[in-house]
């Protein structure tokens, strides 16, 4: 799957989870850039991404992912 397609699908997931149609993520996007992305919403986001791409993050990845770029790298390695 191309990076472009992954980011497009990720944008939809982010917009849906955080209820904000204006969100557009890139590889450098972090939780600081999205107001509602805190530790409580983080898991909801992770689960939504897992459902979208039909893959699973392990707990180590869940707790150490630093930005969307790392998330995309993991997604690419699993699908």
């Amino acid at each position, binding site marked *: 799957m191309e990076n472009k397609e992954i980011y497009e699908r990720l944008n939809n997931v982010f917009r849906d989870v955080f209820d904000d149609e204006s969100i557009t993520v890139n590889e450098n996007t972090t939780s600081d850039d999205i107001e509602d992305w805190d*530790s409580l919403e983080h*898991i*909801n986001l992770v*689960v939504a991404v897992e459902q979208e791409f039909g893959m699973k993050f392990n707990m180590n990845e869940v*707790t150490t992912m630093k930005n969307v770029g790392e998330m995309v790298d993991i997604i690419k390695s699993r699908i």
Partner: protein
Amino acid sequence: MELTTFSFFIFCIVTLIIYFIVPKKIQWVILLISSFIFLFWNNFNASTIIQILIILLSSYIFGILIEKNYNTKKGKYLLILGIVAILCVLIYLKYTNLFLITINHILNFLNIGYRFELVHRNSLIGISYYSLIMIGYLIDIYRGVCKSQKNIFKCALFMSYFPILPSGPFIRYNSIEEDLYGKHKFNFKSFCNGLLRILWGLFKILVISQRLGMFVDTVYGNLSSYTGFYTILAVLFFSLQLYTNFSGSIDIIMGISEILGITLPENFKAPFFSKTITEFWRNWHITLGSWLRDYVFYPLQKSNMIQKLAKKSKQKFGKKIGKKISLYISMLVMWILIGIWHGGKYTFIIGTGLLQFVFIFLEDILSPISNKINKKLNINTDVFSYKLYQCIRTFLLFSFSLIFFRSNSVSQALLIIRNMFDLDLSFILNGNLFKVGLDVLDFMVLIISLICLFIVELLSLSGSVREKLFKQNIVFRWLIIYILLFSIIIFGCYGVGYDPAAFIYRNF
């Protein structure tokens, strides 16, 4: 051995001297010996040896076995076994009475006359810390975050590293491994930095916390005599007492570690500047929060059970509310655990557990309403006055919850809450305020020290205060250091029978 005692001071100096004299490759051995001396200080007997052995051997053996069975079902079972072994020791030592009290309440409710007698367990200092730290270690090996430690003595040092035993912070193996077993040269800058932090910690504990404690203890020790404003003041003072004591201890611990060349994670970030309780807990006991987030909250939220519940509640109540229901359930579990971790008493479970959950829950569901009200009334929320109001509100809510934390029983906490409303303004005129453990001079010292604390905390929000101080001219720098040192010597409260503060400044 308390952090502010002379014996601890000597213990640290001896450790530091030997640590920097011996060949660098055995520095960790010195730390291990010091840590075990600290651990068993005044408490060396068969029971405490067995406790340590069970936790150490469980962590060591299961750590290696989990690593060998990485990514297998067997690995998962081994992890569960390891966690259960450590938890059994912790529960036996710290929570037996909580079970017995609960059973006694049930028996009372059922009108059965029999009561279980409460027991006394002799546990070692820091058990609540190192048991959870070792559980985290096993989970990290299971998740592939770190490798297991094959040398049992090195594993023992990770478990018992003495500075963190009295009050944390929680450490993680992968972040501390290199520092803990590495070679460290004596570094004068780290020494000065560490010493300054230790001084600041001593100032917080001896000048502020102990002094506040005298007032708080007097009021809490005589609830029938002190009501109204005395109670309100004691409740507010206790928050500050707890913060200065806890964060002061952490400052001493971080300072010692810095001199040793071992970096520990920060545990506080100016919590009283938080605008909500949610934000407050991100800045208070940070390492406990992150431990529970990574090892309890995330796995629970991601578990099949909670995910199924989230799916069902989304179908029934819609996406927004449905998502929140599963979140609140996980949060409730986590807050109850935080309460239980603070101690095996219902007062802790209510004060640092359930009440915090209720506050965060209310903040979450009421914030859209309060945003609407603010918009309708044209209240500017982006100004200093509104932020100040939010900080004060958070402080008051936290102080209220600590009534339970400080009380001996739930009924005493309820009595204190009732006493707070028994207002009598006569204390302003009759001068009785200065007879509640603290006199006029004590109050003056307190006010000035709290202003200093406030300024330092405010400065810390924009970067390290010590770095800022070290950038100043030499005269100003040393002036501040001397003022800090002499205020600890002159105004420090060193306990009954040894009170240089009383001896020196009261005679002027």
